[in-house]
């Protein structure tokens, strides 16, 4: 658990605080709402994966006490069974709901992101959550719904709704999400570079 936590906080430190002083890099980095939510999730996930009968329940009790203020106060909900890779960053807070899917490494999640499973029809019991690859940037308010596979190196623009599979190395935007660029420059990922008209037409 500690290696994964070091990878998470280390990535956040490099991306957002590499110019700042000691206090910001080591103390404030771990204290903002997104980082606290990630720490609590890693703790709960570790206890869940441990699977030792008595100790797992004990850890689950402690985890529940920690999780309630995060869910109520910060508005970030990450279930224990979610499989999230190293280097996970939650940037702001509020409105974040991640369901029990798989997320790859180096994912960045902004505020208002929903990664949710849709129940396919009313009589089928099991909801199928999305699978997200490595190096994915989910912009503010992005919603990824259903049985969707997002490949590696994808930038999902702000306020988009992803309902279909996404290939690798693209930028998607819009409702429903369409490919707007074959670059995925995640460092500047906010809105999109100039839309390529041919791609929009071809993909619509």
């Amino acid at each position, binding site marked *: 658990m500690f290696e994964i936590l070091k990878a998470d906080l280390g990535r956040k430190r490099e991306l957002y605080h590499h110019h700042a002083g000691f206090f910001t890099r080591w103390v404030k980095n771990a204290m903002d*709402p997104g980082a606290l939510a990630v720490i609590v999730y890693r703790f709960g996930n570790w206890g869940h994966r441990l699977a030792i009968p008595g100790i797992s329940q004990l850890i689950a009790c402690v985890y529940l006490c920690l999780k309630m203020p995060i869910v109520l*106060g*910060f*508005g970030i909900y990450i279930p224990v069974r979610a499989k999230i890779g190293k280097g996970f960053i939650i940037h*702001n*807070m*509020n*409105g974040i709901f991640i369901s029990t899917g798989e997320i790859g490494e180096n994912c960045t999640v*902004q*505020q*208002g992101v929903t990664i949710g499973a849709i129940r396919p029809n009313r009589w089928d019991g099991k909801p199928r959550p999305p699978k997200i690859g490595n190096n994915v940037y989910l*912009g*503010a*308010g992005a919603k990824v719904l259903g049985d969707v596979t997002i490949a590696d190196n994808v930038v999902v*623009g*702000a*306020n*988009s709704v992803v309902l279909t599979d996404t290939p690798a190395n693209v930028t998607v*935007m*819009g*409702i429903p999400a369409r490919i707007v660029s074959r670059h995925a420059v995640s*460092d*500047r*990922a*906010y*809105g*999109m570079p100039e839309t390529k008209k041919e791609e929009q037409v071809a993909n619509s």
Partner: protein
Amino acid sequence: MFEMIKSDFERKFKAFGLRAEDQGALRYVKLSMELGTQAAVVYRFCRWARGVKIPVIGLIIRIIARMLHLMVMVVAGINIQPYSTIGRGFAIHNFSCIFLLAEKIGDNCTLNQGVTIGNVRGSKHPPILGDNVYVGAGAKILGDVVIGSNVVIAANSLVISNVPDNCTVAGVPARVISRGADSPYLQYTV
């Protein structure tokens, strides 16, 4: 600071959430119970606290301001960075998931829930908004955009390019859908 808080309250008196029969001190009480108003008052306090020059008391005031800011963030989900300069008559309609970091916002701005106004990597400055802007629920204004006056930004839109005066924008990415912004939201000004 107190004039700004008064202007915020006056704007909300005119339009939002009060019935005609509420008069006098009851209006102040009812409005103070709204989380949006509380967040605006805390922002005014934090902004004032940034400029206090007295050495020791200034530090204490800034610590109190920081704690109030964190409390509002946790309880209401409204995070207004004190770097922003916001004009008079600032109204926050609902609460939750509001993040605001802007270079300058003019008078009579209205925010709904889920609004993000922020900068991104590589933008020169955070967004600049003019007077009388109504930002609908879930709208995201990102980058170094300059938005004019008398603008209605529809719900769930994504504004990443400049917006001229007197129009309505909607969509992801935001496109101008109307050149008349005579929407009822813009009537209530201070």
